[in-house]
């Protein structure tokens, strides 16, 4: 083991050097001899010995100077130096220690003592080398880990923090630490222009937390774009996360869908702090409390994806956060707390900057410590549909000219009505035709409105007048939930499409098994602007399509979309009414 070790013996005294070199050599070390200080420096550089036996008093450079040089030259390597002299004076001993001497050996040399000292220093050296190697290994691992995390962060950012967040009516804050705190903020518009937003907080930190974000984001973006409902997206996300996350890992989440056209807010909260709805006209905050278990815990059969729906008027603001903000601690360890959060939002009701006040006060609370900076915060304001500066899905206005004439009939029986949503399928079919794409948003909005009318009022017989008051509004959606469980009936879509080059038309007829309604008298109601979100939303529909006709006993409605050459986008309001 020690065969390879080289020891430099420095002594200007020939006899002493000869004796010492011999002893050291006999112990199995390689010996390099130096006759004075200058010689020692040269030989140290050339031979790189691992240990040095050094005479203190020499002409020219003395031992102290040589030791200083060697320690400098060795850098972070440990090169033990044994001073050869019976230094009896305290200041000389101190000097030897000061320049890095590790031990002393007095003359005449004693073989046993020297052997013991060499062995001890050799052990120290070996430990030092091991320590250095482990340190280097750790720092290599660390560098590797950092590199991987940076790569993962880039992927994670692309997946989790992008999407349609850069809109004038969305304010958000994702603190730098949030990279791997497992917070996810996703936003996108569905084909009818509703904003879907998902705020998630995965358990744990680090890569495990980040991994779940990938499938969650894919499900969210993919299904939102295709027009699936919030409930369906949540169910799929829960199913996927239960399947892939290890035991004990889950994702607290709030998902909201804001309809700018209808002025509604649909939400589902599983395990996150309550979202706060700030209504400038109202004294109280509305809390969107968690009523569900987080995503990734419950089996699909028992997962509850039922959402609640609230009215949300223009100017109403929804503020949501993960628990990082509530748990943010100041220097004394005191948490920011939900009361403070609530209080700031209540005070911010009248002025417009709840988000900014909250941000300011949280950072003031944390102070300069920065260690608890684990904050994800988002505020969304309800705006009129025309103020929504976000794209809806694909709007590639390809001008492919072809000729089409087809008819499609799609009827859903009771089991399908209870469990599946026909809209994504229809949407998929319709976007197959490039000529329809410029109007895809309008078509989708109209189809979903007609479908919910057919299902809720036609098949289930729910009275839309319930929605006239705010409490009835919530009540309505609870009844709908119950009615869905034991409904009986059917809804049929008849879609007829005629395309000739750049011009064409699309007729959609929706028929349900219900008793119908007295559309002749009820349609007058809908001309009253204040009631446009209840009733059958006829005003909205009329704005979106070229014609709208009720037939039969009121259980059949036909809408028509039409477009001409050079008319990529036919949603001109003046032409909507016939």
């Amino acid at each position, binding site marked *: 083991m020690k065969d390879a070790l080289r020891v430099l013996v420095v002594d*200007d*005294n*020939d*006899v*002493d050097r*000869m*004796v010492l070199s*011999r*002893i050291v050599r*006999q112990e199995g070390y390689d010996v390099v001899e130096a006759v004075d200080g200058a010689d020692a420096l040269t030989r140290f550089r050339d031979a790189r010995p691992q240990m040095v036996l050094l005479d203190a*008093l020499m*002409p020219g450079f003395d031992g102290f100077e040589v030791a200083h040089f060697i320690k400098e030259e060795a850098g972070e390597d440990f090169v033990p130096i044994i001073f050869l*002299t019976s230094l009896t004076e305290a200041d000389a001993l101190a000097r030897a220690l000061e320049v890095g001497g590790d031990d002393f050996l007095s*003359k*005449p*040399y004693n*073989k046993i003592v020297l052997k013991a000292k060499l062995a001890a220093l050799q052990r120290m050296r070996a430990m030092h080398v091991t320590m250095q190697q482990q340190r280097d290994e750790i720092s290599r691992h660390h560098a590797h880990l950092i590199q991987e995390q940076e790569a993962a962060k880039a992927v994670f950012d692309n997946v989790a923090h992008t999407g349609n967040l850069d809109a004038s009516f969305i304010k958000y804050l994702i603190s730098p630490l949030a990279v791997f705190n497992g917070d996810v903020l996703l936003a996108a518009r569905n084909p009818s222009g509703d904003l879907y937003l998902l705020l998630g907080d995965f358990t744990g930190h680090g890569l495990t937390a980040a991994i779940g974000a990938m499938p969650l984001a894919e499900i969210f973006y993919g299904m939102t774009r295709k027009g699936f409902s919030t409930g369906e997206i949540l169910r799929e996300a829960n199913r996927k996360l239960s399947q892939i996350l290890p035991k004990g890992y889950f994702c607290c989440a709030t998902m909201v869908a804001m309809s700018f056209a209808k002025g509604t807010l649909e939400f589902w909260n599983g395990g996150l702090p309550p979202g706060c709805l700030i209504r400038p006209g109202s004294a109280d905050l509305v809390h969107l409390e968690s009523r569900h278990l987080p995503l990734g815990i419950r089996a699909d059969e028992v997962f509850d994806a039922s959402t609640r729906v609230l009215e949300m008027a223009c100017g109403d603001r929804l503020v949501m956060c993960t628990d990082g903000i509530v748990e943010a601690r100041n220097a004394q360890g005191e948490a920011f707390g939900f009361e403070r959060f609530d209080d700031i939002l209540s005070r911010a009701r009248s002025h417009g900057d709840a988000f900014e006040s909250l941000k300011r006060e949280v950072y003031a609370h944390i102070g300069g410590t920065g260690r608890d900076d684990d904050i994800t915060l988002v505020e969304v304001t309800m705006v009129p549909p025309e103020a929504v500066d976000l794209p809806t899905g694909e709007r590639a206005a390809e001008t492919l000219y072809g000729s089409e004439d087809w008819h499609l009939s799609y009827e859903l029986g009771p089991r399908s009505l209870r469990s599946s949503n026909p809209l994504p399928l229809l949407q998929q079919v319709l976007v197959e035709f490039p000529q329809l794409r410029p109007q895809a948003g309008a078509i989708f909005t109209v189809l979903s409105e007609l479908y919910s009318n057919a299902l809720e009022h036609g098949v289930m017989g729910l009275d839309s007048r319930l929605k006239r008051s705010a409490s009835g509004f919530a009540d309505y959606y609870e009844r709908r939930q119950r009615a869905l469980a034991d409904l009986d009936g059917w809804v049929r879509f008849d879609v007829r499409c005629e395309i000739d080059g750049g011009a064409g038309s699309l007729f959609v007829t929706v028929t349900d098994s219900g008793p119908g309604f007295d559309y002749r008298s009820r349609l007058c109601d809908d001309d009253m602007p204040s009631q446009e979100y209840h009733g059958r939303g006829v005003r909205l529909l009329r704005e979106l399509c070229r014609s709208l006709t009720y037939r039969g006993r009121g259980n059949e409605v036909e809408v028509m979309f039409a477009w001409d050459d050079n008319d990529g986008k036919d949603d001109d309001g003046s032409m909507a009414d016939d």
Partner: protein
Amino acid sequence: MTERLDLQLLNELEILMEEDFTSLLETYLRDSENRLFEVSEAWEAHDMERLERHAHSLKGASGNIGAAELATLCGELELLAREDSTERLPGMLDQVKSELREVREAVQALRDSR
């Protein structure tokens, strides 16, 4: 002559040095002559630092070949030089010279016997 040198130590030294033992003795003879010359010259020149250094060196070498008495005397000389004790120094220098002569004779005899 036996009291000049620690024979037991020399015996161990011979075992250690093996074939280099005579070479070591010769080195001592040459080196000690040089040191004595340096010490004498330094005294003539009143260069106490030089005197001290060579006395120190001679002390070390003498100790290593088993000339304990000489090593002690060299130590005294080294100390006097450091303290610049010019009154007592000449006497000590004489003692060292005399002891060294005897040691050298003994070492010479030892070397010749090998």
